């Protein structure tokens, strides 16, 4: 009995969500193998081999895996994953893209975005934007699962001494090709892994005003997030969106500025340890989940906050 974890990476760096997924895999029991499929991704395979609790790394290094195209990747995972008890991937954009394809090829149901493991065949997952938790039992012999990273502790990145075994690349159906990408560059911590997040909504009013949040985030060493409304208004790029259809975060401190607190936004941040709301509307629903609420105009409160933090 063993579990296969699909590594999330950018060919150079192993993403931390992989560590959370390894922790989930440990709860299932059995040996843990990690599949690294990429192009010139040796540093990732070496990093995966050091994760505490990993028994073996399977390493497929080929140009067809450079951009995580779902078609060749799903064929590889399906071929490699057949002998396992479960195949786990973080519920990132990459995992959500490829894993249902794997599940269908194996003719099994997928369990999406699990937040707890009850037993090796029974899992808890959020439904209805996190307003209900469903406990589901999988009847399939092989489980295909995506894991909500914020619900599991990260495994230690050091201490493991797994062997790295090179495996041959699979077939590339070739009907999808990579054209290009626009990756947002930021000096700030990655949103899903940040300890502190400062987030803004439509009430920020403009791209310029978002700079006030960036200043605050930088003072706190945190990341900047946003609601869908702020993204749609063009204040910030879409990859900063937090919520049911954006990223799920659970930092130590979440500061929601000019965010009303719609169901869809709360779905992405209500597991944060401490929530602070700054809003001029004292009736805003966000105050019902905030540990500390400040009814104030953001143009006064944010500069004051920056000053106070500098003391």
């Amino acid at each position, binding site marked *: 009995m063993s579990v296969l974890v699909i590594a999330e990476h950018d060919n150079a760096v192993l993403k931390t969500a992989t560590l959370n997924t390894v922790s989930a895999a440990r709860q299932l029991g059995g040996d843990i193998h990690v599949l690294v499929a990429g192009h010139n991704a040796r540093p990732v395979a070496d990093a995966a081999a050091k994760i505490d609790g990993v028994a073996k790394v399977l390493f497929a290094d080929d140009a067809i895996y450079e951009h995580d195209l779902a078609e060749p990747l799903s064929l590889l995972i399906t071929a490699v994953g057949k002998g396992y008890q479960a195949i786990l991937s973080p519920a990132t954009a990459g995992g959500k893209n490829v894993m*249902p394809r794997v599940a269908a090829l194996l003719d*099994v149901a997928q369990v999406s975005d699990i937040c707890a493991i009850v037993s090796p065949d*029974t899992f808890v997952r959020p*439904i209805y934007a996190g307003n209900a938790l469903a406990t589901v039992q999988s009847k399939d012999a092989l489980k295909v699962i995506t894991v909500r990273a914020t619900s599991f502790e990260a495994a230690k990145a050091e201490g493991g001494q797994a062997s790295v075994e090179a495996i041959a690349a699979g077939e590339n159906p070739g009907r999808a090709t990579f054209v290009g*990408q626009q990756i947002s560059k930021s000096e700030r911590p990655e949103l899903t892994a940040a300890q502190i997040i400062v987030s803004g909504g439509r009430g920020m009013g403009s791209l310029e005003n978002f700079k006030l949040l960036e200043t605050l985030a930088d003072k*706190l060493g945190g990341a900047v997030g946003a609601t*869908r409304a702020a993204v749609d208004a063009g204040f910030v790029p879409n990859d900063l969106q937090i919520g049911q259809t954006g990223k799920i975060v659970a930092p130590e401190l979440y500061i929601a500025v000019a965010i009303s607190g719609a169901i*869809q936004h709360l779905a992405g941040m209500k597991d944060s340890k401490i929530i602070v709301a700054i809003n001029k509307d004292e009736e805003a629903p966000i105050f019902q989940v905030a540990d500390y609420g400040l009814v104030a105009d953001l143009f006064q409160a944010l500069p*004051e906050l920056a000053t106070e933090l500098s003391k």
Partner: protein
Amino acid sequence: MKVLVAVKRVVDYNVKIRVKADGTGVDTGNVKFTMNPFDETAVEEAVRLKEAGKATEIVVVSMGPQQAQDTIRTALAMGADRGILVGSDTELQPLAVAKLLKAIVAKEQPALIIVGKQAIDDDSNQTGQMLAALLGWPQGTFASKLAIDGERAEVTREIDGGLETIALALPAVVTVDLRLNEPRYASLPNIMKAKKKPIDALTPSDLGVDVTPRLITLKVEEPSRRKAGVKVANVAELVSKLKNEAKVI
């Protein structure tokens, strides 16, 4: 080019849902239902392709109870040409829906399938990918831009770090993100016209698909509620609380 769009009837996104006291599910009696928001975006995109002369016919499919017919009518009022309702009182999970869609694809032979990236009730985000796998077609998931050029679809996708563009050889499956477009409101004349558009009725057994659920829901419960905290009077008090009480900064 024929375009197939799949739509789902779900509890309206503004409804604050209630979990049933016996833990068997979510209370859906006397609750407002609408078309899944992502599916509205999918229908809108198909209609725009038709308006641009790229699509010739739009077939919209929904699966589930008879009331799903209303969801199909909505899509017809937005501009789809005809509908197919696969009636079933069994809970249809993504793998079953993908298999049913595959059977419909075999009959209809569309060149493009557009679906929402996820339904806001089960939040699975699986069906489009599963359908593409079963058909052996390429997929463009989480699309925020779609351009059709002959036998090729160029899809800009929302990924964790930003955006990515891929090219797919048609036929292909595209799942849409909310930022792809702004769905139109159906006008009253179009709603009237939609009543005359045909809707075929089928069942899973007509399509030869076993829809038995693979995942058994053992219980549904409310998540632990956060307690509302305290209001602070000013910024200085806020910072003091974060430093000394919560100890997070």
